[in-house]
Every structure is written in structure tokens, then in C-alpha cells.
């Protein structure tokens, strides 16, 4: 149980850090007062309607990316797998770019997220159909189909951006960097309703994912319904990634490194790895978001830059430690 307490403390620390970070000041003391029902209207607005939704979104999106990465690594039996490997992000990006280039995103509201979601769902189903031959899903074909679809979609994006208006290029660039600045309470409700049950179903797959790490034949001999397990892992992992991309753009690195780091620290049993990646992913992204908007005044660093610049050295350290076993 100790790793879970450590992770819960990590999540709590990340949440508090996220709440007390921002250009308006407001420290731990203010936080206590406002949560207790006090404080003036302006401070309450900043904390409860600007910072809190961001912190909650970071926790949910990071958690979804952590679980999604863990699922893809188990499904493809490869520690280098990550949520965006099979075209979810390129599909979302194409959807978003289409919305930007055609100008429909100017309508505002949920148009851009919905366009991104539609794009990633299209990519997911194309890759899934290609990889399914005679009722079985070949994970080697899945990787190839995913990577090739991804390349094709990227080419389409480039073509659209080159031919489209210059303003769309800039917006698309910032969209692909990922940002939590657009989140709201209503989006958080959608994220939670979606990511939490999907993650619970993923946790239920853990036993069969453990068997799958020995290969498909061995897993079948251990009583695993191999095709159903692979299908579920692919669909749940992809949908978790898709909803995060729709909500906050492409946030790299978390889905790759969080499950990998959990595996190095606490072992590869998916019964623990997936829930731990849920917690660790949330904590990591909430910290990253605090770092992205914290000490830079009005400028906000793209969150993907933070996750990579802070995360990579830490990850390399972990990797070195893990390799000495």
C-alpha cells in the first residue's frame, strides 16, 4: 500500500501547487480561507473558476494519458509504445486543422475539440479495420497500420496548412503544442464521466494484460480471451487518448514515460501499474501545468515543453537505475 500513499501525496502536492501558482499571487493561506468559504469575490473567482478547473483537468488528462500509455505498452508488448503512436494524435490534429483552415472554428465553443475528437475517432477506426484480418487483430500489423496512417495524416495536415490561410498555420502550431488554457468546469465533467469509467474498465483488464506479456499463445493457454483483451485494450487506450487530445491538444511524453517510470519503480504487474499510472500521470501533468504558467509572468510555456524538459532528465535517471538490475 505504501506506493499508493506516496502517489496520493504526490497528487495532493501537485493539486495544491497548481492552486497556488499564478500571476495573481494567492498562497496557501488564501487557499485555506477561500476553500473555507471566505476571501473576496475576485480571489474566489481566480481560484475556483480559473485555477481549480485547470488543476482538475490536468489531473484527469494526465491520468487518462498514463492509463492509455500503459495499455498500449501492454498491447504492443513494447515499452516504447505510447498513446499517440497509432494515429490518435494525427487524426485529432487533422480534424483541428480542418476546422481552423475552413474557418468553422471561428464559431468558438466546442467546435475545435469536437473536430479533433472526430478526427481521432476516424483514425482509430481506420487503423483498427486495417489491422483486423479474419477476425483476429495482428499487433504487428496494428503498429505498421498506425504508423503509416499517422504519416499519411501528417502529410495531409502539412498540405492543408501550406495551402490554407497563414493565420491557421499559427493557430494549428499552438494547438499541437497542447495547452490547458481552454478548459472549463463543464469540460471537466465530460472528461471525468469519460476517463474514470474507462480507466476502471482498463484496470479490470490487468490480469489478462499480465498474461499477454508472455505472448499471445501463452496467454491463451493461461485462459485469456486474447482477441477480446487486445481489442478492449486498443479501443479503451485509443479513446482515452482521443478525449485528452480533444480537450487540450497534443501533450507528449506523459503517456510514454509515466507507465514506464511506474514499471521501473514498482514493477510491471498491470494490476498495480495501471492504477499507479492513473495517479502518477495526473500528478505529473498538474505539476507540469503549474510550471508552464507559474513563474513566467504573462507568458505561458507550452505544457508539452515542460513535460519533456523536466521529465526527460528524470526519466533517464530512472532508466539508468532500472537497467542496473
Amino acid at each position, binding site marked *: 500500500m505504501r506506493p499508493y500513499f506516496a502517489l496520493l501525496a504526490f497528487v495532493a502536492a501537485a493539486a495544491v501547487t497548481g492552486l497556488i501558482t499564478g500571476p495573481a499571487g494567492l498562497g496557501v493561506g488564501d487557499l485555506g480561507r477561500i476553500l473555507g468559504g471566505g476571501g473576496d469575490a475576485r480571489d474566489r473567482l481566480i481560484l475556483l473558476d480559473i485555477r481549480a478547473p485547470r488543476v482538475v483537468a490536468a489531473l484527469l488528462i494526465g491520468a487518462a494519458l498514463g492509463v492509455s500509455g500503459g495499455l498500449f*505498452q501492454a498491447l504492443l*508488448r*513494447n*515499452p516504447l509504445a505510447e498513446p499517440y503512436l497509432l494515429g490518435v494524435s494525427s487524426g485529432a490534429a487533422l480534424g483541428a486543422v480542418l476546422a481552423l483552415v475552413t474557418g468553422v472554428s471561428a464559431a468558438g465553443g466546442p467546435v475545435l475539440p469536437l473536430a479533433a475528437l472526430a478526427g481521432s475517432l476516424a483514425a482509430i477506426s481506420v487503423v483498427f479495420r486495417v489491422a483486423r484480418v479474419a477476425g483476429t487483430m495482428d499487433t504487428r500489423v496494428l503498429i505498421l497500420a498506425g504508423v503509416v496512417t499517422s504519416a499519411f495524416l501528417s502529410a495531409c495536415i502539412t498540405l492543408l496548412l501550406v495551402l490554407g490561410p497563414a493565420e491557421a498555420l499559427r493557430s494549428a502550431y499552438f494547438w499541437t503544442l497542447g495547452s490547458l488554457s481552454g478548459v472549463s468546469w463543464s469540460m471537466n465533467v465530460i472528461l471525468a464521466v469519460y476517463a474514470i469509467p474507462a480507466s476502471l474498465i482498463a484496470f*479490470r*483488464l*490487468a*490480469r*489478462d494484460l*499480465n*498474461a499477454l*506479456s*508472455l*505472448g499471445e*499463445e*501463452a496467454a*491463451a*493457454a*493461461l*485462459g*485469456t*480471451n486474447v482477441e477480446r483483451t487486445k481489442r478492449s485494450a486498443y479501443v479503451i487506450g485509443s479513446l482515452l487518448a482521443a478525449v485528452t487530445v480533444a480537450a487540450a491538444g497534443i501533450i507528449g511524453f506523459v503517456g510514454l514515460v509515466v507507465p514506464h517510470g511506474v*514499471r521501473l519503480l514498482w*514493477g*510491471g*504487474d498491470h*494490476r498495480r501499474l495501471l492504477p499507479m499510472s492513473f495517479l502518477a500521470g495526473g500528478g505529473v501533468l498538474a505539476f507540469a501545468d503549474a510550471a508552464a504558467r507559474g513563474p513566467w509572468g504573462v507568458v505561458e510555456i507550452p505544457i508539452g515543453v515542460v513535460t519533456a524538459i523536466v521529465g526527460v532528465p528524470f526519466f533517464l535517471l530512472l532508466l539508468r537505475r*532500472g537497467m542496473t*538490475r
Partner: protein
Amino acid sequence: MSLRLANASVTYPGATEPAVHQVDLTFEEGTHTAILGPNGAGKSTILRALGGLLPCDPGEAVLDGREARSWPRREFARRVAFVSSAEESAFPVRVRDYVALGRNPYVDGWRGPSPADREAVGVALHRADLDGLASRYLGSLSAGELQRARIARALAQDPDIMLLDEPTAHLDLGHEFAAFALLAELVAQLSLTVISVTHNLNMASRFCGRIVLVADGTILADGPPGDVLTPDRLARAFDWPVDTMIRPGLGIVAVPVAPGDAP
């Protein structure tokens, strides 16, 4: 528990010829049977068909009167354990956790392993003499220890029947003997039915009461070692001249020979 192949043929997708052709085999409880034969003869295919891992057409594998592939997979896995020759984990795993995978057919997806499951893992580790290695990583084991870990994983499944594909591959003669002796002990103590694919004719003749000699996807001979491991049968199976020596108590020694060798 009875397991048999009934007039079973297996053709791999894309192949024109069946890998296994009209094979009939029935296995008795509490015996160790060796499946012998040259490379590509269909030994592993027979084992996979018995494990319900491949469809037979025509024919079928039958466990307790029910077609192997129509059993619910988890129910089947509580009765029949299968260990392939090249089973490796994609991620680093400790010996205890690897052996614990053998409990998967019993473990509830939500609740996880019960105390009974943990106890079964402990017993399996002990039987395979792995007590001291439980916390080691699988990748750090020697070849002999790794094969014992595979046997322990199959034991943790608490099966009636164990299907082992080359359980002594890559072992030196001492470790190979120890592995066969361990299997003999398990067969005797637990009245397990063990079916092994192996290339060691000598160990098979000593430890297995029954030898199935396979060549070109069909059964060339089936019976006690003395009846099956004769020079002309072996020569026919392996397509190479073979001489044998019978050493009472030590089994049959088979050696390949060249035409010029003195008898």
C-alpha cells in the same frame, strides 16, 4: 482426466500440406509421454492441438469427452497447462510474479489473487526448488533455473495435464537429467499426466513410459521405449542411420552413425 487427439489433422493458414495428418493419440493419467521426431515433423503442432491452441480440420482434440476448443478457456486452463519452448516476458518480471501468472485461470479480475492463490504459488516454487530465487528477475536466471521456473508456472496452474514443448532445451546433461527427474517426481506425487516434446532420446527412454515417434506429420511408432527406439525405426524417422545400445536401468542410448562406422 483424459486427453486425446481423434483423427486430427492441422493445416496452418497459407500452407498447402497439413503439418499433422490424421493423428490418433490417447493419454493415460499419471504418465510421462515423450513426443520424439526430427525438426519440422509436427511435434509442437501436436502439442498445440492438444492444448486447444490450434483448430483441427478434420478431427479434434478432446478433453473429458468435450472438444478442447469448445471448453471455456479458463476452465480448460485449470486442467491443462501448456508451456512453449520460447516463452519470454516482454517486460522484466520477478520469478514469483512470473509463476503467479499460472494462477490467472483462477484469479478474479477485480479482486486479484486470494490467499489460496498465493499459497499455490509458494508450493509451486518449492516443488521446482526455486524458493531462494523467487525475488530474482526472470532474465537473470540460468537456463536450468529458467526451465524450472517454466515448470513451476505450469504447476501453479494446478493442472491435471502438463504439455511441455522442449522443457530441457539449452540444458547441459546434468541439468537435463535433473529436469527429467523433477518431472518424474511430479508425475509420481501428483499423478500428473505430462506430455513433453524433446530431442533427448536417452532421457526419454529412461524417464518416459511411452514414446510417440513422429515423422512427416504422422505417427511412426507409439509404445514403450524398448519397442519404439529401435535402429531401423529411428533411421526411418530421422532419415539417418542410427545405432542403439540398451543399458538396463539407464535407458537406451541412440547414436547417429556414418556408413563407414564399425558396428
